[in-house]
């Protein structure tokens, strides 16, 4: 049970921190790191020991636990691995972040671990209350982590903003859940679809409120406005973590709620009458189109690289939300694959920004002028990540987008194709600001061109990410295969 393992690690990290003298808090991070590596190893062996997709064989029957409040299945385990790896990468770079050195680091890693535990609970939840609690448990450590550098004015401001927005969002979400509970009589997710179509109006209100809460986590427009400020103010490793893991948790929560719908289309079952009545397609159409358009357009004006990447991550949430207009197997695979690719390219981009910040203590676009002459390696890998975010072949980002747009066009309905065209137009717009960063780094002359180099360890980490961006492009079939073997089976949910 990986969630238990993660809980144990979180507690272990706290205890290690107690017994270590203040100056030695570096070791807390190291302990967290080692434990995360072990967990990731266990999960990988469990999921892939017979080649990709083998977990489905191992988990013939998903195991419901706590009276079906949680479910142990491939999807959940896969995303647990996703969150563990994100935490692992974050813990690793946190150890190497200059601004986080000194002071007590113990609680930092403990909080990171707690957030990760909560995320894996989200991935396994089958009950609205569990889901709500898990999402709250993600938020609380994140509030603290965002404001971890207490003396930084921006960090404190970001943390406060995050708390205020988060509190409103979770309140809204809980209110929505209470509607659904009132209508269905239980808090189990599958029971949502038992609600009769005559109660569609009330259920619709409940679902929209619920979606508002999740939209906050995913940073969908119009619930996105916290995102740039928090991303800018937070320590950069935490920004990377939020942009990938926390956003991923929002998506996986939505996937869990919509899981019966994905299954319905796969097994050609009738779509529940309630959903037929509410018709969420239009809602997601508008949400995703608005999210990516706003994200990309506003990113054009950004002069701070962290803010620029924040808007870019909003835009990517918009791309992924497109898949929810389809709710079929193809769209499900597209979300899973997009999240995996996004994991690599977005973490890579933020980590590069972090290592540049480590050396220059700045992350405004002006300080990137002539970066290619200051640190060729960092400039080249950042270029690769940005190109992948833009979606130019031969990078994995291109195939992820291809899969997503392909799913929309395959659906061959008028709104789906219109949305695909909106998405492609957005991609062209995004070329402007991604390439602007590349242009500034390569073509512009900087005032300060003193060279610096990332340490060998940091460089190696980034090279691994950059190689992964290409490797996922060339060896696409395994990841595609892996996504397609995650079962969509309602009888097992």
């Amino acid at each position, binding site marked *: 049970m990986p969630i238990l393992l993660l809980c144990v690690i979180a507690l272990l990290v706290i205890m290690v921190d107690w017994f270590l003298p203040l100056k030695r808090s570096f070791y807390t991070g190291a302990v967290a790191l080692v434990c995360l590596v072990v967990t990731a190893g266990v999960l990988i062996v469990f999921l892939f020991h017979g080649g990709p997709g083998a977990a489905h064989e191992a988990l013939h029957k998903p195991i419901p636990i706590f009276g079906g409040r949680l479910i142990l299945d491939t999807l959940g385990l896969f995303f647990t691995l996703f969150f563990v790896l994100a935490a692992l990468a974050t813990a690793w770079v946190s150890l190497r972040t200059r601004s986080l050195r000194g002071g007590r680091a113990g609680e930092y890693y403990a909080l990171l671990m707690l957030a990760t535990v909560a995320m894996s609970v989200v991935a396994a939840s089958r009950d609205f209350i569990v889901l709500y609690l898990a999402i709250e448990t993600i938020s609380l450590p994140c509030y603290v982590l965002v404001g971890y550098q207490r003396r930084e004015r921006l960090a404190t401001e970001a943390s406060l903003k995050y708390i205020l927005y988060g509190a409103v969002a979770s309140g809204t979400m809980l209110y929505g859940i209470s509607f659904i509970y009132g209508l269905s009589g239980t808090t189990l997710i599958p029971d949502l679809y038992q609600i009769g179509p005559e109660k569609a109006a009330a259920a619709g209100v409940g679902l929209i409120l619920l979606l508002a809460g999740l939209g906050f986590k995913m940073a969908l427009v119009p619930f996105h406005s916290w995102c740039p400020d928090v991303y800018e103010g937070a320590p950069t490793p935490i920004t990377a973590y939020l942009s990938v893991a926390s956003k991923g948790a929002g998506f996986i929560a939505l996937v869990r709620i919509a899981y019966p719908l994905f299954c319905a289309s796969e097994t050609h079952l009738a779509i529940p009458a309630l959903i037929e009545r509410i018709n969420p397609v239009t809602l997601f159409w508008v949400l995703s189109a608005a999210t990516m358009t706003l994200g990309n357009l506003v990113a054009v004006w950004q002069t701070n690289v962290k803010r620029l990447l924040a808007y870019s991550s909003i835009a990517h949430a918009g791309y992924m939300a497109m898949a929810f207009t389809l709710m079929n197997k193809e769209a499900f695979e597209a979300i899973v694959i997009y999240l995996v690719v996004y994991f690599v390219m977005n973490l890579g981009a933020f980590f590069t920004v972090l290592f540049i910040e480590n050396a220059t203590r700045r992350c405004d676009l002006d300080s990137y002028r002539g970066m290619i002459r200051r640190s060729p390696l960092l400039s080249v890998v950042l270029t690769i990540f940005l*190109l992948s975010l833009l979606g130019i072949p031969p990078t994995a980002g291109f195939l992820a987008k291809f899969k997503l747009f392909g799913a929309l066009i395959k659906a061959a309905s008028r709104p789906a194709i219109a949305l*695909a065209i909106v998405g492609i137009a957005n991609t062209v717009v995004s070329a402007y600001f991604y390439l602007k960063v590349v242009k500034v780094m390569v073509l512009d002359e900087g005032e300060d061109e003193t060279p610096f180099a990332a340490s060998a360890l940091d460089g190696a980490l980034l090279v691994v990410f950059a190689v992964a961006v290409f490797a996922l492009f060339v060896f696409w*079939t395994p990841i595609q295969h892996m996504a397609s073997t995650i079962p969509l089976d309602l009888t097992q949910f």
Partner: protein
Amino acid sequence: MLVPDSLLLTFVTFVPLVGLVAVLCIPNRLPRAIHWTSAMFSALVFVLSCDVLVRYFLQGGPTSGGRFFFILQMNWITAYHIQYYMGADGLSVSLIFLTGLLSFLACFAAFNITKGVKGFHAMYQLLLIGMMGVFCAKDLFLFYVFWELMLLPMYFLIGVWGGPRREYAAIKFFLYTLVGSVLMLLAMLALYCQYREAGRPFDMEYLLSQQPFAAALDIQQLVFWAFFICFAIKIPMFPFHTWLPDAHVEAPTAISVILAGVLLKMGAYGILRINLPMFAATTTGLTLGIPTLYIIAIFGLINIIYGALCAMAQTDFKKLVAYSSVSHMGYVLLGIAAMNRESMNGAVFQMFNHGLSSGMLFLLVGVIYDRAHHREIARFGGLGVQMPRYFALAVIGFFASLGLPGLNGFISEVMVFLGAFRANLDILPHARAITLCASIGVVLTAGYILWCMQRVYLGEAKPEYQGFPDANAREIFTLAPLAALCIFLGVYPIIALRVFDGTMVSLIRFLYPTVGM
């Protein structure tokens, strides 16, 4: 050679990847070593491309009727039915050889680069992968990947190592090409949706046999023109040509050679490989009530005349050469539109010849720019006396571009004109009128080239150019092979024509099975 047939094209395409890694491994303080490593890998690519040509001849390519050779077909991304499918017919083989030759020679022209040598050659090798890949790919998706792969290296090569207005030129090139790529991507998605059930939506051979959207001609026309505009931007066809003068002028010499010599050919290659055969109904039919080939011919005519007139008006030496490319690529479009054996062979031969002669012209401009550090035609004069060896090579280059009998350009232009003049009027209406108008282009070309030569090379030697050294060994090494080929192909063109004649004949037969050649 040791490489098996099936892997030959893979080697030609991916040897530069090894070169890229090798270049990156050499420390920055050894710029000579980086130059030479890059040159050696380009030489290896050239040797391999010669090998492609030789094997093509040995295996009876010229008489095979447009068959594909050196085929390698493997599944790549099975979920979307994308294959790693390489193969080359006569058209590809001739362009692979041209690419190998020009990239090898241009690499030496880059030896005078001092800033960021490592980056330059890394980008250069990356560019080489993309160029070779485009001519080898037989899978549409693979073709697209290689096509996109060139975009970024070219952007950097112009933007970092270019002239004073390099950033403007680079971003203009990038945006024009990106718009074309997006159009191509949309067209490919349309094909994907049509044939995903059949399981081979990107296989060029399959698409050719299926004739996509033959039942819905309005959709086929949209797809046809999406591809066509993408390629027309690359050619560059009027009115999409405005990126070219900027990019050519700002790019460093070596990159101008590659741009003019290879990249422009990719546009024409795409039209011949994808547009014409895959959408035969649109090619042989009407668009908006006008015969499609007629539209292409008219744009070709505009390119010839407009390009020549622009070239005549230029005061910048390099810009003149750039506009001459616009004019010369017009002959290719006209030849394609006339759709008979002479004109099609002439068009492809013109592509090849333009690669040689414009490559030479850019190298020639580069040689004097290195010495004079300006390119204003009016300020030159009497360089022929100063630099006799250089002048001799320049005469060959300019006259080949002009189309002087005895040099290669003459053969291809005459073939295009002969073919276009006797084109079937059902296929290309007003063929004779168009050809007659286009022949004005010959006079204009002679006009701007002779006038330019007169102003630059002839006349009194000017004092400020006293003591300019004659072309050095490196420069002669880059120019002489091209000059020799220009003469050789002018005297014995049949050897080149044999390479792609079979492909062109089978293309025409495929489009017009009943019409005589």
